[in-house]
């Protein structure tokens, strides 16, 4: 198995790209994009992570097995985030109908 050696030029280019994206992150943080603020911040972060994984971690020139392992790791991250969000995003639906909830006189945390 031969090891692919990246020319030093590639590392410098990627480093500069990461720095540029970092500046973009800081700039974007001070702008008001409304609902798009989070997607934009996450999008830049994903772009940076992708560059690191592909070039600095040499996944671009690795075997199919290595790529599968990396993809598997991200799939599991998606499972963690996705199913956790399936709880948070559905808290308001399927609440028991008002008739089923018992009146509570003890002071406690208020229900929404």
């Amino acid at each position, binding site marked *: 198995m031969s090891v692919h050696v990246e020319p030093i030029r590639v590392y410098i280019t990627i480093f500069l790209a990461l720095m540029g994206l970092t500046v973009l992150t800081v700039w974007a943080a001070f702008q008001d994009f409304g609902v798009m603020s989070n997607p934009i911040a996450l999008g830049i972060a994903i772009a940076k992570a992708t560059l690191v994984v592909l070039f600095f971690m040499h996944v671009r020139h690795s075997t199919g097995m290595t790529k599968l392992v990396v993809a598997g790791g991200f799939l*599991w991250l998606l*499972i963690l985030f996705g*199913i*956790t969000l*399936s709880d*948070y995003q*559905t808290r308001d*639906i*399927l*609440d028991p109908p008002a008739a089923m909830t018992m009146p509570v006189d003890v002071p406690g945390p208020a229900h929404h």
Partner: protein
Amino acid sequence: MSNAKSKERPEGYPDRHYLNAAHGLKSWFLTTDHKRIGLLYLLAITLFFFLGGAFAVLIRLELATPGGDLVQPETYNRLFTMHGIVMIFFFLIPSIPAVLGNFLLPLMIGAKDVAFPRLNLASWYVYMAGGIFTLWALFEGGLNTGWTFYTPLSTVYSNTAVTTAGIGIFITGFSSILTGMNFIVTIHRMRAPGLTWFRLPLFVWSQYATSLIQILGTPVLAITVLLLALERTLKLGIFDPALGGDPVLFQHLFWFYSHPAVYIMILPAMGVISELIATFSRKRVFGYRFVAFASVAIAILGFLVWGHHLFVSGQSVYAGAVFSVLSMLVAIPSAVKVFNWTATLYKGAVSWETPMLYALGFIGLFTIGGLTGVMLATMGIDIHVHDTYFIVAHFHYIMVGGAIMGYLGGLHYWWPKIAGRLYPVFLSKFAAIIIFVGFNLTFFPQFILGYLGMPRRYHSYPDEFQVLNVMSSAGATILGIGYLIPMLYFAWSMFYGKRCTQNPWGAKGLEWETASPPPTLNFDEIPTVTEEPYDYTPKEVQHAG
């Protein structure tokens, strides 16, 4: 020192083997031999097992009477917390993978060692470092959060050694990750010529599935515990609503690892049982491929069910329903295994050796543990019995009745391979029966207690629960004696037991095709595999058929 009997050497007993290849402490503590590392783990986890057991003794003593008359409530909280932490993170998780897996995996696939021998040794030191941190928490007065570290108790209210214990678990997690990674690479890259995936012993398949969980799940636990420590020390707002966090998020993250962790404990035990059932029925495991894929299915499905721990924690009803259905799906591959083991016994030449007693015990106890698990996956039942002794009984049937029975069965089966010596037959069968009886007497009454409404984690209880609690405490005494007996005769056998032949059970599998105990590099000549696993059918019959 030794008597004449222990000096007798059967035909072909090796002069040189991994145990006498080098001497002195340095040769053990700096070894990269997977077999010696397995023994280092064996010693370490046995110490932790008896430590965790000592906490259990105090818990059962306190619960022998309804009043809280032995220890303070706060002390009791610390006892069950340390019992859980020690037993889960320092005994059950490493038990079969790090001891039997380490010892057997290279032997079973015809390799000289694991893929990364030094990393393997490093994993033991990492484990010990984590263990020392966690024990240090004891000297800081222990901690009272339960092994589950739920917030906000663990972050806001508890003033006990949560951070120290958390760091200990964080560190130990890495030893688990290293073992898992090592095994996956070893299984992929180091199989002997001819040893295709579907010729692998089912123990190897189950170790592979376990390793997947270890490397995919454990980092999440590490991050979760780290976030917990950061919130405690730096007031980072992750879980505390006052700081902008969410306590239920902790439960999501914690159980994302800790539910699959149950399969880190039970899958290797299932692998052991497959080996034992095949050897002592003299038959190929029924539906080999189904059993192999069932391990992988359990590993993957196990990651999709964690929300069944959050049915009453404020999780949405919708998510609860989804998690409920997904949890029930795990029953399918589990049942595939139980049915296939049973089908293997059918018309097999069954013999009743000590390891087989553990295997049969496992099947019965795991079935009870698994079926009560399906009950608990139903929200209607779970909301009724949650946080009662029903839960405690259920998971002890899985972890003690399942995982520990598998571990002990495996230890008895491969002991001649490990030590090159035998243990007393009658005494070992007696101990196996004592353990089975003691186990059921300890934990079956807890199902009834829980169903009647006795909550877990309290040091006192109403008078009407005493009879069942006394039964449970009495059972625990029997169980404790049952565990002491094997420890004593194994320690004796290591030095004084009768030397055995290479393959005392007449078993199939590459691990039996080298000397017992094996040479340092396992095989004088790397074997070539030409037959299916568990090929017990005599050759003449094969040709006639």
